[in-house]
């Protein structure tokens, strides 16, 4: 009888190991769309940042930590994701505070317009990369659409098992490691795809211009979290010029009111596009929706001056290994930029 128990236990262990291997094999490697790898890359350099950026694709395409360090000596990291919803920003911020306490947090306000989860794929790309913590559990339970179930996050194999019949070479190549795709969270886009025709004068008609309660509620929770940690929360709206992601005046008005009421700084960079020097014939890689690296450098330079002058982030002192770490990151950034 004892022999039988031993065999059963060994069999269970063997099955567990095999399933673990299969899980590593079938989980998407996101080599074709790098947005799935952004969250996970933070943990490799999760200390010594003065500023943390959170938000959706506008934030990781508009601000370059390397340039912020080079020009203003500000150490920063961009924890952005494709369509990162406001509650996901909150939980990622909560997760960040478990590693370090930045002096300032910058939140891109476009995501406030989404009141409920949009697509399961976005949830997975944002949340799967997080290390397991109460923050990850919070992120999952607040983002799940109805068809999703919590166990699919605990065991991604249950969600991605059907990819076994659609494996690619990268699934084997990156089975245990993952490709590095960002420069401290900035996803470099070197392409130039100018905006065609005359600039749009208005975005799509929206059903209702009041910002959803859920996103405002989590914005408030972010503000409280920053206040608790003595961190300044700064709201920004990155420049964009497309009818699809149009920042309607009603939204701008509501965020301005909220910022004044809570004493937060709020910068809407759309009207200041000329002042920043952004030219949509050279500084965008997708016809005006997002900035490419050249546009982002102008944007970061402009925003860096604001941070230094208005938010006391000038002449910051850093430890020896932070400075040397940034030296390497700068070299890597320029190597990638000019290649």
């Amino acid at each position, binding site marked *: 009888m004892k022999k*039988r128990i031993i*065999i*059963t236990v060994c069999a269970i262990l063997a*099955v567990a190991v095999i399933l673990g291997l*299969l899980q590593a094999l079938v989980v998407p490697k996101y080599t074709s769309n790098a947005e799935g790898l952004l969250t996970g890359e933070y943990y490799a350099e999760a200390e010594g940042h003065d500023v943390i950026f959170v938000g959706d694709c506008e934030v990781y395409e508009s601000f370059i930590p390397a340039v912020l360090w080079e020009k203003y000596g500000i150490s920063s990291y961009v924890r952005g994701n494709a369509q990162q919803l406001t509650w996901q920003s909150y939980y990622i911020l909560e997760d960040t505070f478990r590693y370090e306490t930045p002096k300032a947090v910058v939140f891109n306000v476009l995501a406030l317009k989404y009141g409920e989860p949009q697509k399961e794929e976005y949830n997975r790309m944002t949340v799967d990369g997080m290390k397991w913590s109460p923050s990850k559990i919070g992120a999952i339970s607040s983002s799940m659409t109805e068809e999703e*179930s919590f166990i699919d996050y605990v065991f991604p194999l249950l969600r991605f098992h059907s990819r076994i*019949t659609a494996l690619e070479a990268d699934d084997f190549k990156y089975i245990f490691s993952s490709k590095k795709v960002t420069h401290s969270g900035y996803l470099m886009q070197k392409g130039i795809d100018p905006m065609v025709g005359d600039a749009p004068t208005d975005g799509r008609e929206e059903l209702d211009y009041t910002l959803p309660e859920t996103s405002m509620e989590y914005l408030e929770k972010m503000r409280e979290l920053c206040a608790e940690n003595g961190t300044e929360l700064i709201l920004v709206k990155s420049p964009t010029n497309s009818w699809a992601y149009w920042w309607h005046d009603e939204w701008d008005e509501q965020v301005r009111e909220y910022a004044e009421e809570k004493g937060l700084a709020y910068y809407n960079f759309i009207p200041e596009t000329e002042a920043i020097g952004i030219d949509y014939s050279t500084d965008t890689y997708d016809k005006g929706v997002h900035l490419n690296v050249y546009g982002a450098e102008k944007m970061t330079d402009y925003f860096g001056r604001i941070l230094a002058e208005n938010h006391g982030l000038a002449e910051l002192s850093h430890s020896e290994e932070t400075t040397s770490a940034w030296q390497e990151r700068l070299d890597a950034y320029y190597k990638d930029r000019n290649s």
Partner: protein
Amino acid sequence: MQFTSYSFIAFLAILFAAYFLSPKRWQWVTLLVGSYVFYAFAGLDCLVFILFTTLSSYVISRLMESALKRENDYVAANRDAMSKEERKAYRARAKKKRFHILLWGLVLNFGILAVLKYTGFAVYNINSVVSLFGGKGFSIPSLLLPMGISFYTFQTMGYLIDVYRAKVTPERNIAKLALFVSFFPQLVQGPISRFGDLGAQLTAPHKFNGKTFTFGLQRILWGYFKKLVIADRVLTAMTTMLDDPAGYDGAYVLLLIIVYSIQIYADFTGGIDITIGIAEAMGIKLTENFDHPFSSKSTKEYWRRWHITMGSWFRDYIFMPISVTRPMMKLNKAMAGKFGRVAASKTVAYIASGVTWFVTGLWHGAAWNFIVWGMLNCLVIIVSEALEPAYKKFHDRFPKLTASAVYGKFMSVRTFLLMGVIRSLDCYGDVGLTFRLWGSMLTFKGFGAIVTGGIFDLGLTAADWLIVLCGIAVVYFVSRASARASVRERLYDRPIMSAALCGLMFIAIIMLGAYGFGYDASGFIYGDRF
């Protein structure tokens, strides 16, 4: 709560633990609580109906029991004072009184089932008749259909009839009866158990036994393999063909018939394997519901191997009683004079089986296609019964041929296809449409299209079809092996091989199963129609 949902797996694990940890005397209580928790997941308002059925059956069974006791005491007390005829008359009168009590139970419970399941169907038919004369029909009410009502109602009525026939002593403890009515695994799709077989087992204590528990888990695993790897995967191709019957006619109908036969076999026997496995893990033996149905050589044999418990229920509680009722006997006597004894008795049998098949069809679902399905099955059985002498002559003329294995295989394939054709009434839904499609099937239109790749744009890739084919091969191999001797018994003697195979099976289910996000949690075919 579908069998294929994660929450059911968690529920099962908790129930097993609670069942074996609770003290022997209270084990059946844990089972009862578990069954009602399972049932509550299907909707609290359904509880009302299952409680009503339990309560009414309890009261009626006790009334019949006391009536029978009074009858026996009376006869015993005056045994000598009464002559044989008097005694016979008294027994007949007492039996009629007991029958009345039984009738209350049947009317009450079948009444609920009829109202909930068939009102819509009845109103629909009334509407179509009324609209013939230009009237405006009634609005069809949307009625709540409690989970498993068809199964637990039939099982409980079987119990009541057994009590009436004094074949079973009624259960005194209403909670124990409640467990028999609501034993959760068989709620979704049977098997329909008899109180004589299951009643005592449910309330008897069961010590944890490694062997039966492993056997139970293995059977559950086997059920999930058939359900998730084969049935649910093939379902995608079926729904594509069913969504556009006009587009997929001709040879596609034949393809659908074969695919549906595979799908319903894997889905139904898989579900029953899970049900029987769960019971077996807890030391409870449920009646087998299938016995290699696709090896049957005739329709009659098929219906002794497919959904056995339903067939035996209808035979014992509808077919037999009908054939011994007075009108039937009078009809038999009347016809015996004119057409001879054998012909008369045969007609009685045919009428009785016609009625039984009508009720079977209706029980499967509240729609004409199910009734036509039932009647067609009946027709095939009666025709093959009537042609019996012709078959015998054919067998005598070619003894070598008919005894050969090839002819045996031919008969199995013939029965498989015949049953598949009739069964396709289930999925096409509309009787007229189905007959037209059967007609177009004979033209074999589009056969070329299927073979040259048409089969791959039904929603299943080549890999999917390969997985399904391997699944079928495994099922075929295992069922052939189990025909000789119990596979699990032989595996039990080789623990390493058994553990390896179970591990492999588990991995196959996790990797190749059609479940989770992207696959809609498709309930069991029978589960959908309660």
